[in-house]
């Protein structure tokens, strides 16, 4: 047990409210307002500390308040808005407030999930910044006693033409891979966008999902006066001091990289041991409570645990294992050295707990005990170096309702904008897209440029570096709409997706955030999973600027609205402010992580076409498109072109307005997807998102094939031998209904490349399409058949009018075999994507060619090509 009762200590433990305790305690010089400001605090915040303590804090105490009251830890600027989010629902076991939210997965299992950002550290030191971001979110999950089962990430970088941005992407991906792979937790999904607003401020958001028996969720508590407090894990060093206050809670400037010492350094090996040891201790029920020491380190763990239990805590930092001998109390309390945990157990369990740590060869030390006076008392040897009320650190931080101005509105695009706008420079590689839209670019050239845009192209170069399959539960790997991960020892599976289109949110934060919620849930529903809840990571500029704060307030409102309509509560999240460096803020970037549940993982629906002959259906907001607006050149609304990838590539100066979102239809569409999957009707389902319908259809043709790719992508980034590696690329022969025979090229662009939400491309066996149609009608979701999937024998199918070729598995029961049943789709009869409408051909191109453009572009961009 820890020290108590030296004479010196007793002399210093007078009640803090006693203002007579004017004598400062040890732990550094008495702090004043100037040093508070140097710590990133305001004069008012300093006055408040003095009021709470009844005296001036010493340097250590000031440091403790500065980190706990930082934006990162206290959510002081965001709290008033976050309170408006819906957090209750039948599936919610734990809402915001704990290390992560928890939902009921049935059979007594709780799914624990959360997203965290590590943006600024990743800009300064991309490998370590991203690695420790992964380490931090993993600790958040296993701190609750849950075994982490899956990681996802959402990344934002500047354009890859810049060597610095390629360096950042390479480092961030390397760091995520280095940490996650070593931990034995599969990285199963994610998303990446490239935009110049992230040039000096890339975003690294990491999501983790874990599972724990619902009754065994561990909380960050320090109950039981006299219980020992255990420190375990890595030694405490000088790394990461000010991580939360100066890195995460302040605007960057040109000297940002000089803050490199504030970036923590990760050691996944220690974390792996820590995770296994902590989970073993949790499984054996040896704990009262546990908290990780990540951001704000010892200060955070001691104050939050004591505050949550209404108790106090006394620790002796002389007992804390240290990397360097001469660290001050201030440095020990503020260090953000990684891979450290704090545990509280009952005295008679102590030996067993320490025994587990010994097995895993970890340093574990009793550093103190739980007290009853509500204070965090920090001793160094016999000397009191800090003594502050736990609750004041953890709960009573400032709360600001900062002034904000509503975001500017962007008018809808008009056809004339697109007729007269100059074509944007060919900035992202792809095909030669020169010329004016008065002489329209062929649709196929637009499609080739879109699929080769790094944001829309295959992310294989990235996710190939992640271990996606460890723990043998990954049913759907990265690249589809959502990842599907089976729950161990049950047939059940969860679907996980991370989404946040920053161009939508940039144009209209409110609708953009609502669209992100809708898309994340739709992606989960595409696999057949019932969306249960969401988490989020809200990346914005400085909250002290009214326009950035206005973006934030609008995004929270939009998220709230969508969550209520779709019936998915918010179980937690993370806010990352101050994402602006040099002069400009990033695009407001609300990232939504959705979790859905599948009763049977084996019934999950993939995103790509599976079998030649299947019917292709459009589900959702397809309404006959431009049939009403007849005359070419007439001022029509933009039909979903606003904010689209098409407009970004070809009409950059005319962003337009974000497409509207019908949340009622969205909810019905998701119900249809879940119901149809449960009935085994769907062979594939894919959300129409970035790049619109044409890109979604192209992806349907190669997603199944990409999952099959086994060849080594050559270092040059060029795919060699694509024609003889047995890929089952498929094609599609489609006729879009309701297209006006005299549609102008803007209308056609809107039809093919508009990004209106709430639309899904599904494929279904011909015998079952009537059932799908009936179900769609019942749920009041528009559904229309547009054609069929083709393979090598496309010509044969073309002439066939009857049902598709007789094949085993036509009842959808053994879908896993259907891919191998399809012959290699290469050679002279290579599959084509053919789209007709209004009596004429709109687009007809070789899928191999499209696939090449899509599959090789990111690797080529990383080579600087």
């Amino acid at each position: 047990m820890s020290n108590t009762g030296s004479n010196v200590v007793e002399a210093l433990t007078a009640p803090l409210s006693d203002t007579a305790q004017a004598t400062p305690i040890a732990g550094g010089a008495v702090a004043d307002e100037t040093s508070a400001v140097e710590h990133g605090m305001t004069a008012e915040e300093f006055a408040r500390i003095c009021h709470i303590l009844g005296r001036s804090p010493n340097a250590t105490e000031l440091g403790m308040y500065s980190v706990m009251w930082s934006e990162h830890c206290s959510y002081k600027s965001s709290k008033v808005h976050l309170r408006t989010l819906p957090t209750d629902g039948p599936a919610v076991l734990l809402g915001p407030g704990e290390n992560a939210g928890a939902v009921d997965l049935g059979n007594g299992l709780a799914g624990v999930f959360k997203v965290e950002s590590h943006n600024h550290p990743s800009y300064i030191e991309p490998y370590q910044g991203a690695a420790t971001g992964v380490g931090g979110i993993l600790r958040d999950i296993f701190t609750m006693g849950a075994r982490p089962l899956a990681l996802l990430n959402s990344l934002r970088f500047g354009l890859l033409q810049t060597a610095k941005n390629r360096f950042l992407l390479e480092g961030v991906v390397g760091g995520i891979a280095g940490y996650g792979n070593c931990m034995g937790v599969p990285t199963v999904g994610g998303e990446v966008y490239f935009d110049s607003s992230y040039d000096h401020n890339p975003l690294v958001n990491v999501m983790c999902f874990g599972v724990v028996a619902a009754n065994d969720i561990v909380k960050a508590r320090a109950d039981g006066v006299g219980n020992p407090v255990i420190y375990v894990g890595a030694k405490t060093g000088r790394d990461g001091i000010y991580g939360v206050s100066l890195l995460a809670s302040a605007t960057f400037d040109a000297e940002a990289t000089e803050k490199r010492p504030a970036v923590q350094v990760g050691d996944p090996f220690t974390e792996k041991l820590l995770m296994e040891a902590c989970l073993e201790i949790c499984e054996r029920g040896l704990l009262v409570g546990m908290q990780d020491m990540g951001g704000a380190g010892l200060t955070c763990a001691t104050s939050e645990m004591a505050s949550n239990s209404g108790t106090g805590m006394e620790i002796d930092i002389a007992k804390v294992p240290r990397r360097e001998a001469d660290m001050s109390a201030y440095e020990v309390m503020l260090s953000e050295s990684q891979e450290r945990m704090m545990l509280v157990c009952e005295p008679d369990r102590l030996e067993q707990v320490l025994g587990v740590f010994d097995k895993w060869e970890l340093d574990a030390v009793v550093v103190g005990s739980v007290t009853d006076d509500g204070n965090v008392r920090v001793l160094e040897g016999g000397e009191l170096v800090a003594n502050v009320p736990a609750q004041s650190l953890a709960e009573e931080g400032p709360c600001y309702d900062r002034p904000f101005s509503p975001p500017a509105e962007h008018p809808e695009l008009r056809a004339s904008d697109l007729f007269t706008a100059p074509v944007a420079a060919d900035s992202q590689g792809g095909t030669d897209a020169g010329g004016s839209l008065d002489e329209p670019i062929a649709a196929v050239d637009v499609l080739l440029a879109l699929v080769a845009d790094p944001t829309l192209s295959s992310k294989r170069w990235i996710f190939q570096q992640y271990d996606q399959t460890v723990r043998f539960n990954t049913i759907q790997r990265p690249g589809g709409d959502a990842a599907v991960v089976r729950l161990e020892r049950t047939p059940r599976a969860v679907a996980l997706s991370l989404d946040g289109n920053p161009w939508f949110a940039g144009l209209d934060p409110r609708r953009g955030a609502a669209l992100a919620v809708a898309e994340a849930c739709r992606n989960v529903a595409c696999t057949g999973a019932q969306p249960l809840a969401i988490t989020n990571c809200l990346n914005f500029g400085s909250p002290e600027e009214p326009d950035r704060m206005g973006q934030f307030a609008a995004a929270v409102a939009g998220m709230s609205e969508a969550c209520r309509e779709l019936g998915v509560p918010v179980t937690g999240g993370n806010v990352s402010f101050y994402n602006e460096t040099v002069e400009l803020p990033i695009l407001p970037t609300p990232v939504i992580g959705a979790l859905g549940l599948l009763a049977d993982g084996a019934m999950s629906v993939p995103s790509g076409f599976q079998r030649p002959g299947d019917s292709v259906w459009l589900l959702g907001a397809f309404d006959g498109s431009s049939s009403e607006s007849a005359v070419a050149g007439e001022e029509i609304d933009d039909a979903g072109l606003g904010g689209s990838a098409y407009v970004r590539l070809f009409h950059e100066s005319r962003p337009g307005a974000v497409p509207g979102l019908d949340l009622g239809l969205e909810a019905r569409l998701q119900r249809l997807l879940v119901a149809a999957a449960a009935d085994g009707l769907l062979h594939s389902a894919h959300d129409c998102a970035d790049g619109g319908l044409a890109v979604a259809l192209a992806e349907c043709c190669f997603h199944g094939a990409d999952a099959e790719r086994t060849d080594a992508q050559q270092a040059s980034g060029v795919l060699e031998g694509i024609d003889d590696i047995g890929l089952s690329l498929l094609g599609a022969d489609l006729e879009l209904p309701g297209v006006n025979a005299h549609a102008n090229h803007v209308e056609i662009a809107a039809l093919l490349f508009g990004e209106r939400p709430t639309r899904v491309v599904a494929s279904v066996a011909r015998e079952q399409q009537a059932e799908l149609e009936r179900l769609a009608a019942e749920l009041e979701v528009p559904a229309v058949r547009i054609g069929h999937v083709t393979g090598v024998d496309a010509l044969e199918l073309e002439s066939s009018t009857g049902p598709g070729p007789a094949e085993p598995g036509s009842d959808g029961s053994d879908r896993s075999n259907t891919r191998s049943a399809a012959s290699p789709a290469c050679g002279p009869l290579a599959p084509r994507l053919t789209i007709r409408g209004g009596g004429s051909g709109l687009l007809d191109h070789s899928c191999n060619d499209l696939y090449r453009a899509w599959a090789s572009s990111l690797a080529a961009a990383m080579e600087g090509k």
Partner: protein
Amino acid sequence: MSVGVVYYPGSNCEQDAVHAARLVGLEAGTVWHRDTDLSRYEALIIAGGFSYGDHLRAGALARFSPVMGAMERYVADGGMVLGICNGFQVLVEAGLLPGALMPNAGLKFRCQDLLMRVERNDLPYTRACAEGQVLRLNMAHYEGCFYVDELTAQRLEKNGQIAMRFCGPRGERASRFNPNGSVNDIAAVSDESGRVMGLMPHPERCMEPALGSDDGRYIFNSLREAIVARRSISDEQPLASAAGTGQASLAQQTQQVLQGEPEVALDV
């Protein structure tokens, strides 16, 4: 206990291997690196992961852990040991398998499916495969480029120690089908006795079609057959109980592995 899955601090595939062994009907459990009594296991698997964080070099520290001395005796006494991924690296570092595993060509961690051709179907880990059969497995590693010098490579070829090679869908060899730059497209290599084999890809992750492939079952079924065959020989029962292909070579193999071997635990 039929199969012991050895794991070290930092291993992360031990549960996967136990699960895979159980899926083919083998009794299996984990063996912590401090255990030195291996007598109750009929075969060992060294699990994948990052033993000791791959500090210094993958497998370089694990070879010094207490279990390794026992494992060397186990092998010398005729035991069967399969090293998967990091387990392969450990076996190479420990000198139980030839060669070295270097960072992948391309210098990146790679996780992907790949194809490999069975070169020898008479090993305890391949006897359920057809000769030349192409298996689809999943790999996830950074240091998996198998290297030996030219003379050693010739010796390995001559001795028949090349158990599997990376290949295309029809079993054809080409550099693009070799995902990590291994010499001669070597994907799995055995010791001279054939009782110790290492491979970088993960058969234990490929046991169910829902997870992308169930070709890993060929490896685990082989191991089960080998264990059953040993039991029948020890019981002096006819070998026919281990039905399957390549029985002649199997008999040779089994006799070879039984030379000098003490009692084999038979109770399950």
